[in-house]
């Protein structure tokens, strides 16, 4: 960790050396460590220390971006010169208006000493808990325990100045038990102390033990109950399919021409909030613009999308604080998604289901048709047939090919508790959907 003063000194120095009409400089430093285990043993254990200094230079309407992990004086000087050279070599971009001006960035306490000082031995002890728990259930464990510490500093020549330090930790495990049993659980938090390895291990072990000897289930349309891990894949799929302003401006979003219209079920309210402490909060985006809450879908109605400065200026609006970094070619993206909770819970949903499928998690999801929000993927790590309000037996994994909005339109119950999940950093509850199409099966 450089600390606020040293980090800002570097970015201001780089800004001073960059000869351009407007300049933005960002610095991200990181200390990251990850312990990976499989077959109930640690097989990979890594640590890294890095930094990325990025300069965005604007000359007229020419915009260039350069980055390097060299932050010594010579490295900064070379990068500043390269920024000018790259920018001058370009053609003008008539759509570019300006870098963003300063916004009021809130102070967030998102750095935890306990996480920053977590050691390889600490991670190994936690893995030992997971492995021993698996053993006590007759299962084997695989997974990863990672911790990280990062600093972000952004300044620009229009007066933006933003700095924050943050930490995070994640433990995930897949347990397996012959024949054919699998279970998954994970925990993600800013404070590693909030992660209980025993609780994660027991959650996975119980699912694993219950999923041994799965039976075949024919493809078809069924009611489904999705745990938050699975819900996060649908929500992340929606984000990819068009919750950023660039996709709307390029007319490839499912939101196009539908703002104000009912696009999915009335129970569905989806928003992005980088400041909500239930997620992994971050006070500003890659341009140093303060994060704003954006209500994307409200009671099933298409309401809004997120903006960075480039897409906002095109429409005469202000950035919502969702720039994604670099030269911004991927456009703005919601990185702190929340699905509004309901008043149900997993047990109640199962009891209220005559016939249906309980899904722990999806695997390898991919958009088949973005404007129709059609997503495909597989179930994995604990899929069960529900009959007469009870989990009847485990089933082999299924492929789904399904419009996300159509599926969410059939939501009849939403969990009251939300879980923070690494897929899309989404904070989501469990869901019951009355119609979900499985298009194929596999052999396990």
């Amino acid at each position, binding site marked *: 960790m450089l600390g606020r003063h040293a980090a800002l000194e570097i970015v201001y120095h780089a800004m001073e050396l960059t000869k351009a009409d407007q300049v933005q400089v960002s610095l991200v430093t990181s200390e990251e460590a990850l*312990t*990976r*285990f*499989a*077959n109930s*043993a*640690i*097989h*990979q*254990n*890594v*640590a*890294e220390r*890095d*930094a990325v200094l990025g300069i965005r230079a604007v000359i007229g309407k020419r*915009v260039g971006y350069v*980055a*390097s*992990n*060299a932050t010594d004086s010579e490295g900064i000087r070379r990068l500043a010169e390269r920024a000018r050279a*790259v920018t001058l*070599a*370009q*053609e003008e*971009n008539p*759509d570019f208006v300006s870098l963003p001006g300063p916004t009021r960035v809130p102070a967030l306490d998102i750095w935890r000493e306990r996480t920053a000082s977590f*050691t*390889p*031995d600490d991670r*190994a002890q936690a*893995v*030992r808990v997971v*492995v021993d728990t698996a053993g006590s259930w007759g299962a084997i464990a*695989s997974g*990863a325990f990672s911790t990280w510490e990062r600093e972000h500093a952004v300044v620009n020549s229009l007066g933006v100045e933003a700095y924050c330090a943050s930490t995070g930790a994640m433990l995930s495990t*897949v347990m397996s038990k012959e024949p054919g049993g699998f279970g998954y659980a994970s925990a993600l938090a800013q404070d590693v102390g909030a992660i209980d390895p025993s609780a994660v291990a027991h959650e996975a072990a119980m699912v694993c033990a219950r999923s041994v000897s799965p039976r075949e289930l024919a493809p078809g349309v069924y009611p489904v109950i999705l745990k938050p891990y699975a819900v996060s894949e649908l929500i992340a799929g929606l984000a990819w399919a068009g919750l950023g302003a660039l996709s709307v401006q390029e*007319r*490839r979003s499912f939101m*196009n021409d539908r703002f104000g219209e009912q696009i999915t079920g009335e129970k569905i309210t989806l928003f992005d909030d980088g400041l909500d402490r239930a997620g992994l909060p971050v006070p500003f985006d890659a341009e140093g613009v303060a994060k704003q809450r954006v209500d994307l879908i409200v009671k099933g109605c298409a309401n809004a999308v997120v903006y960075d400065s480039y897409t906002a200026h095109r429409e005469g609006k202000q950035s919502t604080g969702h720039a994604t970094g*670099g*030269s911004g*070619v991927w456009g703005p993206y919601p990185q702190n998604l929340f699905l509004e909770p309901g008043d149900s819970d997993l047990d109640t949903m199962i009891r209220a289901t005559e016939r249906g499928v309980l899904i722990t998690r999806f*695997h*390898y999801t*991919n*958009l*088949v*048709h*973005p*404007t129709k929000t059609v997503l*495909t*993927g*597989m179930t*994995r790590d604990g899929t069960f047939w529900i009959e007469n309000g009870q989990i009847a037996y485990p089933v082999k*994994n299924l492929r789904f*090919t399904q419009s996300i909005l159509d599926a969410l339109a059939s939501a009849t119950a939403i969990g009251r508790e939300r879980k923070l999940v690494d897929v899309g950093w989404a904070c989501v509850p469990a869901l019951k959907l009355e119609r979900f199409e499985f298009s*194929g099966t*596999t*052999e*396990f």
Partner: protein
Amino acid sequence: MEDLTQRALDRARQAGASYADVRVVRRTTEEILVKNGHVEAVEAGESTGFGVRVVVDGAWGFASSRQVDADEMERVAELATRIARASALVQREEVDLAPVEPARGRFEMPCRKDPFEVPLEEKISLLLDADAALRREPRVTVSEARMAFFREEKTFASTEGAYLEQVKTESGAGVAATATESGEAQTRSYPAAFGGDFAAAGYEFIESLDLEQGAETAGQEAAALLDAPQCPSGVTDLILEGQQLALQIHESCGHPVELDRVFGTEASYAGTSFLTTDKLDTFQYGSDAVTLVADATIEGGLGSFAYDDEGVPAQRVPLVEEGIFRGYLSSRETAARIGRTSSGAMRADGWNRIPLIRMTNINLEPGDWSLDEMIEETQEGLLLSTNRSWSIDDKRLNFQFGTEAAWEIRNGRLGRLLKNPTYTGITYQFWRACDAVARREEWRVWGIPNCGKGEPCQVAHVGHGASAARFRGVRVGVMR
């Protein structure tokens, strides 16, 4: 540099390492995006650092840093040994490495025209011309033309005495036209989707692509797809063009033959593999038309190199011979477990990542058909072109792909253009249904620069040699 790497290796040994290696890596990148008639972005990047990998008490440890100097080499080497000792706390078997002859030397892959020396203005001009060609079709609303260049300068040294320097340059480009109308968006790309095609070569590769000609066709086809009927559902014969077949090979052969997946070390993330070791030399993976190899020695392949990141020489390894499953991509550690030597497939995504088993160039060997002959001898079927979406289960059995476009085949002739085609199957059933592969003259190596694997995530640049191939009785039109 050898003085520096030796400092790391000596410190690791003093701290108790029975084996250590160090990689010092410098990466240089440049990306240019032209969109809708103007330059949207020019990005240039550099990243330098080193990583030290050690075995202590029979367990692995790895640490890395961007600061390449003697003191940091020693700090990081010592940290790696501390991490390895922590690994040993939860250990079942000690690491055992298959032997390799320690090699020394310097190797530079061919690059006739250095892309980083070609003036930016020249590259932008070529992209602007291609972008304009995309927009000659008025219904194209988003036009994109991209180029990307990548250079890696890498030094590898090990306590066994290896010392290797390698330089590899990669170049790639592509165009994409998106036509939109009434809530429908259709994209056609050339020569491949998701940024185009890539090769371990210089700017001469970009010049060989004829982007402008490809762009004009892409624009026209994107617009035509708006009016095209939906690909129907059913079971039919399928001909896959080379670029889509490259991804089919990637997902359903390349990943399942990774021996670390087979042994479960990717179980919690990307998954395992149905190609378990009991199937070696006996399992009918495909028809006798199917021969697949891993070949890190071919010129221009993104998966080519002189030595892998364990100092093992590049090889050509049989994976499937006339349909029978024959071999794996392996490392020194995993190869030792099946009594073989490493196939030389350990590759790391930069200085700050540990090497993992990654694809090299996974190729479907050419057959003796031509694409035209395949079409002529197909009564009813579909010709599918250019990947759009992909998904496969965590043992690599059930897959589903979408492509940008399909053409009907009826009575040996190409017919209507169809939109939103998809197809699905079970890996070995699909490859067993392969009855025709196009010949060497129609075969080429496709570059895929975005293969993800591992935690922390690593992105590998891999190659796939493929020509068109035909598959009988495939389920198509999954999305209605």
